């Protein structure tokens, strides 16, 4: 069964009024928008790191947040995986240690078993050979894969990726534009991928939501956006492709 992520939140972040209503199930939703449009703030609200003033966040029928009922699960109880823009790898842990951290919090596994599972996850993302390295010695693409392996280690019911391709150079970026979307498709998790690049947006699939000044201004396939752009930003976005 494909799980479903429903977001309907309102809140003021800095000087920006965020008011977003989105739902997605089983496939990645691409969130595109200019800088400071509220994309990362929205991710933080879903994660439970930022508290909306009104609304609700529902995952798989579970209420993660509901302002009216006073429900606000802490991040550790939400089951939402997160890969931040700079990958957020723990600098003092090895690659395998980073992934094992994702295993140790939720389940009581023996140390050896954790390590074995972590290596498995790394192997699935083709980075098992980096296991004993420290994050600072990884390239952008390697860091991205390790961060994804770590997020998957905690068996999340949804996945949030913030600008997953932004820091990569052209060659690796082309490669990851194939690799990441195919992995996400295999997982069948509701996922939100934040990007500002139309090429990246197209690579992640057909469901694109454009967010500007805290609001969703348009949603659809890239072709639909090109046909009837709802704002100057959308016009510019589809022309850049």
């Amino acid at each position, binding site marked *: 069964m494909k799980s479903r992520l429903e977001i309907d939140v309102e809140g003021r972040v800095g000087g920006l009024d965020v008011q977003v209503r989105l739902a997605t199930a089983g496939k990645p939703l691409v969130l595109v928008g200019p800088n400071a449009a509220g994309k990362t703030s929205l991710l933080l609200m879903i994660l439970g790191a930022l508290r909306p003033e009104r609304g609700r966040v529902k995952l798989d029928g579970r209420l993660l947040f509901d302002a009216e009922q006073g429900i606000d699960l802490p991040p*550790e109880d939400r089951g939402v995986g997160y890969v931040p823009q*700079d990958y*957020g790898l723990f600098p*003092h842990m090895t690659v395998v240690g980073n992934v094992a951290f994702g295993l140790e919090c939720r389940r009581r596994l023996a140390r050896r078993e954790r390590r074995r599972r972590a290596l498995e996850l790394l192997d699935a993302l083709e980075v098992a050979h980096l296991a004993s390295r420290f994050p600072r010695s990884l390239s952008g693409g390697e860091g991205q894969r390790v961060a994804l392996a770590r*997020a998957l280690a905690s068996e999340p019911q949804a996945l949030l990726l913030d600008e997953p391709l932004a820091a990569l150079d052209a060659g690796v970026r082309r490669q990851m534009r194939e690799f990441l979307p195919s992995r996400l498709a295999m997982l069948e998790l509701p996922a939100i991928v934040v990007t500002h690049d139309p090429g990246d947006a197209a690579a992640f699939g057909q469901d694109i939501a454009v967010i500007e000044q805290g609001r969703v201004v348009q949603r659809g396939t890239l072709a639909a956006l090109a046909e009837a752009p709802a704002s100057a930003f959308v016009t510019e976005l589809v022309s850049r492709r």
Partner: protein
Amino acid sequence: MSQTSPPRGRSWQAAFWAAGSTIAAATLLAFLVLPVVALGFSIRPADLIAGLRHPTVLPALRLSLFTTSASLVLVVIPGTALAWLLVRRPGVWSHWVETVVQLPVVIPPAVGGLALLLAFGRHGLIGRSLATMGIAIPFTTLAVVLAEVFVSAPFFVLAATAAFRRVEPSLLIVARSLGASPVRAFFRVALPAASPSLVSGAAMSWARALGEFGATLMFAGNLTGRTQTLPLAVYTALETDVRAAQAISILLVIVALSLLFLLRRGAAASGGLALDFPSRVEPRR
């Protein structure tokens, strides 16, 4: 007049400034090094050993080790908590708290000692109620520890605050999203990521406590074996046996130099581990 080469007067001026600033810098450097060199060169090894055998030395050494260890614990544990709160729960009050924390650095130590006396002395603000319970702090070993905490805490808290500010907030969000409780995220992620700077902050704070003189003299007195730490022993020994004063001083300098050396090596070694991961500069509130 040529456009390409500067006028003669100006190149002479530049040379003058270059020579002048070099001489000024070298003079200051020499002034800083000379006394330390003098400390070591004007004593024969036999006198050094005789000096260290002076009856004040061993009790003072023992007391200094004990009190600075105690004050280090009393600074580091609450100091880490305070620094963490300042970074993670900033508010209108945090600016004032940071100012208050820095106060002991700018207050003259003797004034600090007097202030401690007026707070914890027999007729002091808190000391009066302590006295009715039969607790007297001034002129005890505990007073030495408190004086050291007072003067050394700012060094640790400031270093720890800076260290926690350099920990990426996204690291903690990731840790929580992976299922870590706030406590686990702190101990497994924030603390280790900040630890190299925390250790050097603790070392600087300990060195300040070891050298504490003014506040200790005012608040704890100068009693052999109870409140006479190494710096006070130097002061006392100078009146009777210069060799002993010199020997203790050399001991303190060696400790200080080794600490500096270890810190520099530690910073270089951990630089690759935790000091140079990308950090976001957060605005200070």
